[in-house]
């Protein structure tokens, strides 16, 4: 693997391999010495053009636990705010000898541009680009599902036949898109539920069913996994639904819907949560919720991805 830009280009065996390596990385997290010497002498740049706390910290922790040197770069307070282009930024990083670039950008496709350019010869990891993809989030979600469903027998397995319902802002969610392609590759059955205004044009061509009524979908699918997406108020420039209370009542996971779920349905949220809006505190803090596991698993998945991209002999330019 040379870059990780999208879950859509991942083959099934590649995806399962990442999840299996993440199992080994998760074992390391339980040791007294949580560090591996594997990427000693490599430099990873976290190139964040958009605010993020947990993804950046997660990548930073992952790189440091593999003994890589980490340089954090955020657009605020950098030359980007003085008008520097992506090309010049990338060439600057190349001149400093970056081996890996973790990029988050507000423009969909920016990581592809960086990976396909000859500005920098580094492994590129997409850490979220516009409304396009966020592959490591989907991988950590799949990893969390696999661990909850198969426990210690997880290695080598995919998610065949697992019924997943994803609820919320599908229109703006890169997490939803990355999950869509990865879950399809791993054999899960996916249903999206959202207000009609938050379903993108073209969703009918996706390998997933799309519904507008949460109660009907939950009653029909009886999901193994229920994933609530964050309502991204920073991207809500138009009135997609009347108000927050209406959204919570129609599409939020409240205590009543929580009680009606199968007792073994797992409840996921990529964070940060808007408690009381898309998910109630009762649901978020219940034993069925995997919110904190997802954060812990995120470090393991990102360690696996950085290991695969940066440890071996550099593959020839493809």
């Amino acid at each position: 693997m040379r870059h990780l830009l999208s879950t859509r280009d991942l083959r099934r065996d590649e995806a399962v391999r990442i999840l299996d390596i993440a199992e080994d990385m998760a074992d390391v997290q339980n040791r007294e010495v949580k560090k591996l010497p594997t990427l000693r002498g490599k430099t990873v740049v976290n190139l964040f053009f958009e605010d993020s706390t947990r993804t950046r910290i997660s990548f930073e922790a992952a790189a440091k636990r593999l003994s890589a040197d980490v340089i954090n770069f955020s657009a605020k307070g950098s030359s980007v705010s003085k008008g520097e282009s992506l090309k010049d930024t990338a060439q600057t990083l190349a001149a400093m000898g970056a081996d890996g670039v973790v990029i988050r950008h507000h423009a969909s496709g920016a990581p592809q541009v960086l990976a396909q350019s000859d500005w920098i010869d580094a492994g590129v990891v997409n850490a979220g680009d516009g409304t396009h993809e966020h592959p490591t989030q989907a991988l950590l979600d799949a990893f969390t599902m696999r661990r909850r469903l198969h426990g210690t027998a997880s290695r080598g397995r995919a998610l065949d036949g697992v019924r997943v319902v994803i609820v919320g802002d599908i229109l703006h969610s890169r997490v939803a898109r990355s999950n869509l392609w990865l879950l399809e590759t791993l054999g899960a059955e996916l249903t999206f539920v959202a207000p009609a205004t938050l379903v993108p044009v073209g969703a009918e061509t996706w390998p997933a069913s799309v519904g507008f009524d949460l109660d009907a979908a939950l009653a029909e699918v009886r999901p193994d996994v229920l994933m609530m997406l964050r309502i991204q108020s920073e991207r809500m420039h138009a009135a997609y639904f009347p108000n927050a209370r209406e959204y919570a009542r129609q599409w939020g996971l409240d205590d009543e819907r929580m009680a009606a779920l199968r007792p073994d349905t797992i409840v996921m949220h990529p964070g940060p949560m808007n408690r009381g809006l898309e998910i109630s505190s009762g649901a978020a803090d219940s034993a069925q919720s995997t919110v904190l596991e997802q954060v812990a698993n995120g470090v393991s998945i990102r360690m696996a991805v950085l290991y695969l991209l940066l440890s071996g002999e550099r593959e020839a330019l493809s």
Partner: protein
Amino acid sequence: MARTVLQQADIARALTRVSHEILESNRGADDLVILGIPTRGVLLAERIGELIGGIEPGSDPAGMVGALDITMYRDDLAKHPTRTPQPTQVPRQGIDGKTVVLVDDVLYSGRTIRAALDALNDLGRPRAVRLAVLVDRGHRDLPIRADFVGKNLPTSRAERINVRLSGLDATEEVTIEG
């Protein structure tokens, strides 16, 4: 042309002798942890564990055998395509204060064992570390030697040693090629 140097019965005899030697030097099976290095070292460690269980009544082979993956500690990661690591499994009792016996199939350059010692260092602090190998073929790059050797096999660097063990392979033998 491949030449068989150890047959199934030879391997069994060698492992039985190595198991006895381990018990002799450790004065019993107390505080003994046997860690195999994937892939074939793990199989050999399990067999040595079973043999020790048969020799020492009251010892618990399942509780002393584990696997130690060294992929993340190799010194040649950048010179090969990315390797897939294997699981590390340490017995529940841990390795602190124990005598750890590392088990591998072939001892050659010694670099694998160097990596294993580093990996062990991150897992805890054993009282002593010993090394058991099925075949020692010489040509060490590092100052490392085995404490328990199934078979010393003088080779040239151009030759290839293949260890096949039932459980992973169709046959059980050690062959030399080249």
